[in-house]
């Protein structure tokens, strides 16, 4: 495998066209596990959305360029890409965003605008904010520079009670001036995550353990729930490329286990930081979500 020092040398000294050729050759032989960031652009993550007639998803997208460059003109454009839980594209919605502004959209409204029917009621989305022209001019044209958009996504109960999670990983690169979505991770691996949360399943009407495949490789993921006596239950699911799966837990799924201070383990995660989202639904109708 090519080490980080070699990548750094390649970025610094090899002309862009040639280095991209070297990269694609090395990728073909499985010797390159990260993209060549030799231009300027934005690294985006894939997010979970739900709009099932009960829960909804709220995007309050902040113009983060205005935060880094309050002295520059940071009006910009963006595109929201919606995908099904199987990773298939549903549609895209372009938008504009003023300086210090928020682009606010409910996913249920976006699906309506696209005339899309999604029977599963959930999937993934990606949002690309273009680097404003004045910011591009400010950045040194001789040096690569990327932003990593790690925006916050909100979920709403039917009564508009909100909760949020943030982006945790990388999925696509969008180079400035181009529309091609370049996958950040060429191939999926099989990582393990051991969430710290002690789960008391009796508190929840339902607990979803949500996992996104951020790679081009279909992957089988396994969720194991163990109790304080080390009794356990496991479930597995094959997640297609850029798809998402929700492992659903409630008292019936964990019957026979001690319900307090249970622990979770997820195996087969395709990307290093693609750890699960826990989505809690309470008997009162309240919701909350967190990244592990």
């Amino acid at each position: 495998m090519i080490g980080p020092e070699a990548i750094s040398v390649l970025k610094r000294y090899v002309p862009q066209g040639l280095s991209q050729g070297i990269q694609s050759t090395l990728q073909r032989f499985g010797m390159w596990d990260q993209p060549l960031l030799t231009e300027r652009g934005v690294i985006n993550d894939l997010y979970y959305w739900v709009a099932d007639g009960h829960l909804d998803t709220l995007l309050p997208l902040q113009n983060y360029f205005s935060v880094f460059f309050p002295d520059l003109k940071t009006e910009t454009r963006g595109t929201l890409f919606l995908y099904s839980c199987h990773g298939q594209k549903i549609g895209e919605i372009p938008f504009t965003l003023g300086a210090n502004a928020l682009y606010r959209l409910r996913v249920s409204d976006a699906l309506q605008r696209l005339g899309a029917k999604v029977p599963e009621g959930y999937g993934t989305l990606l949002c690309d904010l273009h680097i404003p022209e004045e910011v591009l001019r400010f950045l040194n044209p001789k040096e690569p520079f990327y932003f990593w958009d790690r925006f916050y996504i909100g979920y709403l109960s039917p009564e508009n009670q909100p909760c949020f999670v943030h982006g945790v990983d990388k999925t696509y690169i969008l180079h400035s001036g181009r529309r091609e979505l370049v996958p950040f991770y060429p191939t999926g691996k099989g990582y393990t995550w051991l969430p710290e949360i002690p789960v008391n399943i009796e508190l929840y009407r339902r607990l979803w353990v949500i996992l996104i495949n951020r790679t081009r490789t279909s992957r089988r993921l396994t969720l194991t729930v163990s109790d304080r006596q080390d009794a356990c239950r496991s479930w597995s699911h094959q997640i297609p490329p850029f798809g998402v799966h929700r492992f659903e837990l409630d008292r019936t799924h964990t019957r026979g286990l001690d319900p307090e201070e249970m622990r979770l383990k997820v195996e087969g995660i395709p990307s290093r930081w693609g750890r699960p989202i826990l989505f809690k639904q309470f008997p009162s109708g309240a919701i909350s979500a967190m990244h592990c």
Partner: protein
Amino acid sequence: MNEQTKKVTLLNLISTPVPVLNSLGLETSVGLSSEDPVGGRHPSETYQGYLTIYSPEGTFVDRLLLGEIPPHRRRLFRVSRLLQNYFPQRDHLVVVHRIPQRFLSAGRLPEDTVELSPVEGDYGMFRTLVQYSFPGGANGSVIYETPSGLNTRRPGRPPSNTLTFTSKILLSKTVNSYLALLYYSVDPAFDLTARYQFHLFAEEGQRVASGLREFRPFTVQLIDSKETIPIDPVDRLACFSFVGYSSDGILIPLILNLDTDKGREAVAVEHTHPAQSYTYPFRPQDKQKLKVRAVQQWKALFPTEAPVPA
């Protein structure tokens, strides 16, 4: 000291500062694990949990033993129950520490230091689950840890700085958003006051509120969006964005979205990414330069002389 090893106070090996938000009527619990969340760096072993308590003014008050976390286990500790006799009406900071039992078995105290190699001392991503709820209500939780070397004095260099931004500020008749800002240091003698300036923007980008706060070390303060933003909340959720900054130190923000509707009292809580994690420059040191430049530009746009009372 061996060149490869580093002295670490056991209390700073794995820790998380936690705001206790009594003024909001919230109960606080913390969840601790005895496993490496990423897997593989440290075999699971027994840990001891400790809780350091600071007063609302930032004075050290007490240190309690939370309890043991056996190997391959999770434990939930109800911090509010332990703190019943400490500042029941006021917000204050506590710090949760986790120490491997093997370090303490050698007769050491939590306050002692150990000398560890980079591999032995790599407890990055060992985080604490911080959970809030109204009594008997639904809980919201978030997971984070103390950033390495947080707010330590660096002779000859300027202090650390903060650039915060978030879009999680929502208001309606029943929903309010609070920013809990934590000012903590891994150095118990740290004494630098931090000035933190902030602005709130409406959806279209116009500034609707600004403020300035002063923080003493080891304290927490809340910014109440409903009190700060001059609008009459309606049924529909109103969205705002937040930008805050300080050249004096690092403040850790937690954002709480509370729904106080009767029968549905709910809490959601999230932290924010540090600004530097949004950039991927060619030279890693440019992350910091860009952040410092941004703070300077905000200060130039909104100069202020006198602090606004908290």
